[in-house]
């Protein structure tokens, strides 16, 4: 790529959280990050920093990442106290350095939540999310030959709502942004996706009760701050939390009457 004019660069002051393991004490490492190209993504900036650390025989920073297209949900760090950083509706991997200014200080930390213990540096353990899905975040349709797909018509509006909710990438920014470390946005997104669809009706009430109560085993309570929505890279709507609360209350009586039948 030698034919290119040198791209614009930034000189930044980074404070990056380093922690050797789940039980180790962590601390900030201060790094002068010079000559960071504005066209680099945030994670490519970390790649560059790591290359420089390796050159200096310092163990590189562990950070979670994979697809770098904003869809796998693997990445995510607190950037100056904001989950996924300053750009709205953007996962860390899709954030680009042109959103920062020369001389900026950037504090980079892992998600902070009791349910997401730090594994190393910027990497946390989010398995609690999988426990919520396992509790009922599915429609039981064993592989076989269900009826023809077009025999279950789904009104376009309903399919669109389900898709809006299903767009969640499970990154955990909602929990990290919440002052209570609550997982209402994540849980309600999956619940709403399945509960609005006709296919999801038979298990609706059982699913709701199980998922909400599993969520409460791990995470804090929602007090309607709305920080989750602000941080969400997929802009999942707060309406789904209201939907979940309503379904949860209903589920208590529905499940009782179902059990007595």
């Amino acid at each position, binding site marked *: 790529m030698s034919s290119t004019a040198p791209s614009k660069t930034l000189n930044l002051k980074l404070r990056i959280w380093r922690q050797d393991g789940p039980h180790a004490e962590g601390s900030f490492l201060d790094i002068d990050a010079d000559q960071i190209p504005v066209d680099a993504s945030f994670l490519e900036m970390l790649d560059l920093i790591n290359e420089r650390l390796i050159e200096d025989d310092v163990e590189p920073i562990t950070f979670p990442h994979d697809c770098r297209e904003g869809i796998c949900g693997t990445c995510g760090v607190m950037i100056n106290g904001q989950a996924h950083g300053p750009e709205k509706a953007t996962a860390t991997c899709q954030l680009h350095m042109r959103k920062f200014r020369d001389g900026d200080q950037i504090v980079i930390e892992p998600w902070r939540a009791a349910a997401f213990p730090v594994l190393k540096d910027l990497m946390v353990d989010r398995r609690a999310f999988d426990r919520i899905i396992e509790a009922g975040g599915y429609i039981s349709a064993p*592989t076989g030959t269900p009826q023809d797909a077009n025999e279950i018509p789904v009104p376009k509006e309903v399919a669109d709502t389900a898709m809006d909710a299903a767009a969640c990438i499970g990154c955990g920014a909602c929990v990290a942004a919440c002052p209570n470390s609550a997982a209402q946005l994540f849980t309600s997104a999956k619940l709403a996706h399945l509960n609005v669809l006709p296919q999801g009706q038979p298990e609706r009430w059982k699913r709701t009760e199980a998922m909400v109560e599993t969520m409460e085993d791990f995470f804090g309570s929602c007090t309607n701050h709305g920080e989750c929505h602000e941080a969400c890279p997929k802009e999942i709507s707060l309406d789904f939390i209201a939907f979940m609360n309503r379904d949860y209350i209903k589920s208590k009586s529905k499940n009782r009457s179902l059990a007595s039948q």
Partner: protein
Amino acid sequence: MMVVLDAKIPDGPIAEKWDNHKFSVKLVNPANKRKFDIIVVGTGLAGASAAASLAELGYNVKAFTFHDSPRRAHSIAAQGGINAAKNYRNDGDSVYRLFYDTVKGGDYRSREANVYRLAQVSLNIIDQCAAQGVPFAREYGGLLANRSFGGAQVSRTFYARGQTGQQLLLGAYQALAAQIKAGKVTLYNRSDMLDVVVKDGEACGIITRDMLTGEVHAHSAHAVVLATGGYGNVYYLSTNAMACNVTAAWRAHRKGALFANPCYTQIHPTCIPVSDEFQSKLTLMSESLRNDGRIWVPRQIDDARSAADIPEAERYYYLEEKYPSFGNLVPRDVASRNAKTVVDGGRGVGPLKNGVYLDFAAAIDRDGVEAVRERYGNLFDMYERITGEDPYKLPMRIYPATHYTMGGLWVDYNLMTTVPGLYCLGEANFSDHGANRLGASALMQGLADGYFVLPYTIGDHLAPKLGDATVPTTDPVFKEALAEVDQRTRGWTQVKGTRSVEHYHRELGKIVWEYCGMARNRTGLTKALSEIPALREEFRKNVKVLGRPDGVNQQLEKVNRVDDFMEFAELKVRDALHRSESCGGHFREESQTPEGEALRDDENFAYVAAWEWQGPDTDPVLHKEDLAFENVQLTQRSYK
């Protein structure tokens, strides 16, 4: 070991092969299924759907992923859609047409029987996914919507906005989660599979490294299923996720599984061009964009004007001009190669002159901004975030990038490799796409293999083993494999060289892209065959891996993968060199038509090239599976 390639294609007319086969394979009684343990490595579309379906049948499944959660597998990034021969649009689609299109699109280098079965079960996939609650796009009447995709002459592609892969994967992941909850699947997350264990010629287990503690573990089972994705990251830059690798397939290859057609790689035409040396990966823009976008470059060489300043008459709509019937919707290999031709000819656009325009001005004029936003809004947003340019105002800049790999472990009709008991599904196998994959067919194949093929065929291997215990992990074969993996992994931290793992991966990628990318020739491939071993030797002597082998160490995870890519790359180049014809994504400059299109040599190359490992310093042995075309007539592909 004497290798005999027996594809085990059932007899009978093509439309009846799969039904006949399902009846003739051995069954395991429902009450006996719980007596069998099956290992499934990988939790993408193929792996998650297989693990869930096998567990539903009653088998004990151990599922492995190197991610923190099964939902992270790279299937999640597929954008455009999934094909199925439903003929919901009444536009003349059929199982036969999907079969025909796939064989033709694959440039007659796939196995007819497998492809026909794929087209057949495509119908079941859509039904299955709809029943799971996958939020497919719908018409106002509530029925499923379709679009035409990637050059198909019928509308057979089902989609969930621009996130079809995500929604299908979440469907499979949720089915898997239900089985984990039911206790039928044990999930091992953050587990990196580093070897396949073989005893008396049969697969009996795997070795994994716990990525949190660094400990290596042995796992035993009656059958091992690899659903571990493709090898596109051999190019360093690709649209694959950062962790995608060839390790599972390569380790299986070293243990006796033949590797088929490693030179077949799909270079996807619509990706965002490289912008700088620091670039870590390339981003795909769904090719559904080609439905409405018009591809062009300036007619004038080295034209420095901005797109808006170039008048209509001076724009070269090269696909529309060369291929009036398919236009911008020619198959991927044709679109990619033509982009390379115009860019190499000095007509590239953008600051590095390394792209072509994909222009939506006509679609916006015709249908309005809102209609275009409805169709492609999320893709346009993604483009703007990455490039800082607004595609509603400026044409997008695109260029081809490595995207999918059609080659993979050789499997028979049952999806079993040449190692008995070792199966391979999805992108990791070679079976269905020939030398080029059609758009929206990867999701179809992954789910076909996992939901509807393996659950039937695996019984044939297991049924005779009723009552057999698995090989205990205390057996010497496991102990040796454990020691070898542990030693290999720990060894990297002792090299104490001077260059990073990333550096060597990048260098390898440059060689493979330069000589074994969109166009290949004998001179370049021969050069690559000498450069790769030299680089590998330097890498092994001079790579720097810091940190401890115990505990989280991302460099250590990567160095094993790059090491395997270093060996694999050589095989890939060797395969490309031996196949002196052009076919599909494999374009040999020596073999082209007068118009510059790929020229096949059916007389000499209508076979699957399956390579057998002979040891680290010995050339691999080539085995050939001849391809018989009884239902489709071989023609020179033409999209004019």
